[in-house]
């Protein structure tokens, strides 16, 4: 028999649609089919098709899964998987758009998200969408709900799985193994219309076929933006930028080819101008339709919001002071993110107000830390009493097991509480021993 493929030739799920499967999901699905851990699958793959030279750290890759953006590791993995399965996987990453957008803020890194409605209704728990891996997408275009962070688990602690038994699939809670994240019973949150529009634009982009992508390049994108500015803003690039909530010079630099827009910025521009993103990529301006009324407020999609340009120093100061008066005082970073202000600027311009906020925030943190410590002391003391009642030895491990509270190094409050309780128990034992001999 002629040489067979290393792995099963599983086709890429939903290829050619907005729900196209991500590379990570494909690897996980393939490893599930072969009864292998994803790490082992990648090891087997690289044994057969090694990567020569440096630059491919698969241990890091499997920890962070930064394969969907324009990075090299994604391309190397895709090439090898294509050889091993004879399945075209070019659409499973954003790499085909890598030349158009800068790598930063393109694909998600570490924090993964999912649509609670999609995972609840799917029959295949291993199917994860590439759309969920795009950083600027925060909603599901199909169900119009906000994506949810995959790190959240709603199961009680005793139902959480040990690390070596946790599954790794997009539609399964890795902490408790619940298929479709049924451990979380909260209703999905309806998404704002602008978040849905963003997801729709990006979804259309992901559904582009190779033939449609053939004519798309940086030059065509520049031409498209230029046409949009001409048609909608009468060639006034500053107006386009301000309208889209971007810095005044940004659109100008895109048109001239000095800079490339990030995907989120470009989508924001498209939303304000009612332009079709995929047409813009191909060098044309096409209106989506008259939906301006749907946007009551200016869309806030990018991290770099320039709302602050309209806020006076007095307003910023007032905002900082109000934040300091809140019961749960937020951090300086949180307040600055709310008003679109760089924290460094806030510290430089309003040192007193920022100092007040920092002091309040520290005060809150210390209170929280003390509360955690006290709670832990109570729990460990109860556990120690229970162990002593049973005549069992009161050691660090037994105490943690009995209290169901692990004192790990990153939680110093618990570690300190455990030490203090153990010390008390030891002192008590010595006293009893002394009394007996005395």
């Amino acid at each position, binding site marked *: 028999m002629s040489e067979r493929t290393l792995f099963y*030739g599983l086709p890429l799920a939903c290829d050619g649609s907005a729900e196209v499967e991500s590379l990570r999901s494909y690897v996980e699905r393939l490893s599930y089919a*072969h*009864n292998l851990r994803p790490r*082992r699958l990648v*090891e087997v793959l690289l044994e057969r098709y090694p990567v020569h030279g440096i630059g491919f750290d698969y241990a890091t890759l499997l920890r962070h899964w930064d394969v969907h953006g324009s990075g090299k590791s994604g391309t190397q993995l895709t090439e090898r998987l294509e050889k091993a399965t004879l399945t075209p996987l070019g659409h499973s990453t954003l790499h085909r758009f890598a030349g158009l957008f800068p790598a930063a803020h393109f694909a998600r890194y570490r924090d993964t998200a999912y649509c609670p409605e999609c995972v609840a209704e799917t029959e295949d728990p291993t199917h994860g969408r590439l759309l969920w891996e795009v950083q600027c997408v925060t909603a599901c275009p199909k169900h119009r709900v906000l994506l949810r962070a995959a790190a959240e688990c709603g199961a009680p602690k005793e139902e959480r799985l040990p690390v070596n*038994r946790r599954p790794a699939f997009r539609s*399964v809670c890795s902490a408790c*193994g*619940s298929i479709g994240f049924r451990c979380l019973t909260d209703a999905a949150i309806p998404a704002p219309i602008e978040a849905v529009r963003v997801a729709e634009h990006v979804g259309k982009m992901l559904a582009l076929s190779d033939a449609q992508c053939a004519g798309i390049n940086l030059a065509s994108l520049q031409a498209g933006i230029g046409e949009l500015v001409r048609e909608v803003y009468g060639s006034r690039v500053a107006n386009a930028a301000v309208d889209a909530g971007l810095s005044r010079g940004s659109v100008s630099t895109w048109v001239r080819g000095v800079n490339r827009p990030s995907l989120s910025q470009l989508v924001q521009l498209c939303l304000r101008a009612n332009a079709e993103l995929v047409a813009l990529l191909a060098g044309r301006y096409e209106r989506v339709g008259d939906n301006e009324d749907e946007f009551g407020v200016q869309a806030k999609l990018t991290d770099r919001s320039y709302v602050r340009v309209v806020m006076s120093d007095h307003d910023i100061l007032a905002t900082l002071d109000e934040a300091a008066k809140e019961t749960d005082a937020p951090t300086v970073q949180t307040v600055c993110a709310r008003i679109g202000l760089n924290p460094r600027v806030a510290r430089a311009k309003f040192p007193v107000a920022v100092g007040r906020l920092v002091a309040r925030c520290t005060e809150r943190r210390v209170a929280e830390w003390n509360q955690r410590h006290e709670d832990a002391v109570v729990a460990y003391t109860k556990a120690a009493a229970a162990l002593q009642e049973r005549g069992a030895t009161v050691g660090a491990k037994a105490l943690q097991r009995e209290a169901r509270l692990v004192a790990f190094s990153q939680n110093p409050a618990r570690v300190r509480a455990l030490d203090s309780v153990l010390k008390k128990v030891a002192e008590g034992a010595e006293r009893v021993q002394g009394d007996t001999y005395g």
Partner: protein
Amino acid sequence: MTKTNREITKSAGEHTRPNSWVDVLSQDVLDQQLGFFETRVKHPAMDRLLDDLMPLLTPHSESNIILLVGATGVGKSTLTRVLLKTLFERFSTLVQDDQTVIPLVAVEAYANGDNRHGFATLYEDMLDELMEPGQEKKAYVEVRDGRMVNRPHARRTVPALRKAVKQAVELRKTRVCVIDEAAHLMRFGKDTAVMDTLKSLSNTANVKWVLVGSFDLYDLVAEHGQIARRTAVLNLERYHLDDKEDCAAFKEVVRKLQAKWPCAEVPNFVAISDALLEVSLGCVGLLKSLMLDASAMQLRNGGKWDPIFLRKAVKANKLRELIRKEIEAGEAKVRDALHGDCLWDEKTLAELSRRMEPANV
């Protein structure tokens, strides 16, 4: 009066027997004998069986489990080889067009005394045949009560291996799975458990399971109607001395084997084909074993033939009788259970055929 074995050996030794066995083990001699050993003869009984079998292997046939039974030494191993070659040729286009598929899997059910691990070994062999990667470090995922949980320590259990085989045959689009020496399966567990396992595998993956083995295989289906519905039993028949056609066919087999005789001096076996049929109980495999032993003796004798070699090569009476009884008991067991043995006798079938003739002809 017949000679004793000692006398036979003595008289054979009077010929030009070399001093040492090593003297005759030249590469040429070994090659000659290997050539004869590897000679496979297709014969009418085998052709008939393959003709019956091929339609059953079409994907949409309901007979998912096919038992190929036969007497010991009737040529089942040769049949398996021929079958695999035929199927391989049949699937060659499919294999060339799609490098991800493995349409044919052939394994042997070993009986190594460790019955507990019988199925596990069988499944592992199948996974090897299916080119399953990373077998030494599998991690199965259990799906239960709406949860998926990794089972890092469950990689060697039989259910986990069965699941892996099921997935592999589905995703590799396997069409036919041949298990040689399948009678050993019965030692792996209870008959029902064995058949249920095969049935569930064949149901889910739409695979045809061809089990090759002795008549004992029939015991697997004998008492389970549900399994019998999905099973076809085919017998590789031996040749009978009282049937002229059989005698002629057997003579042809002898002629073919004689044509491949490894020595320059070729005895006329064709002339005594009826006698050979009788001593080999009509089994082509036994005939070949007999001729192989005789050829070895002739080679050892420097290529000079002596009729005594034939006598020594024939099975001893007691052994032959033992084999004959076992064969007859087996044939009696599968009688009326074979593919084509149905309710209608020839007369009824003729009547039915007459009534079935199209009205406009």
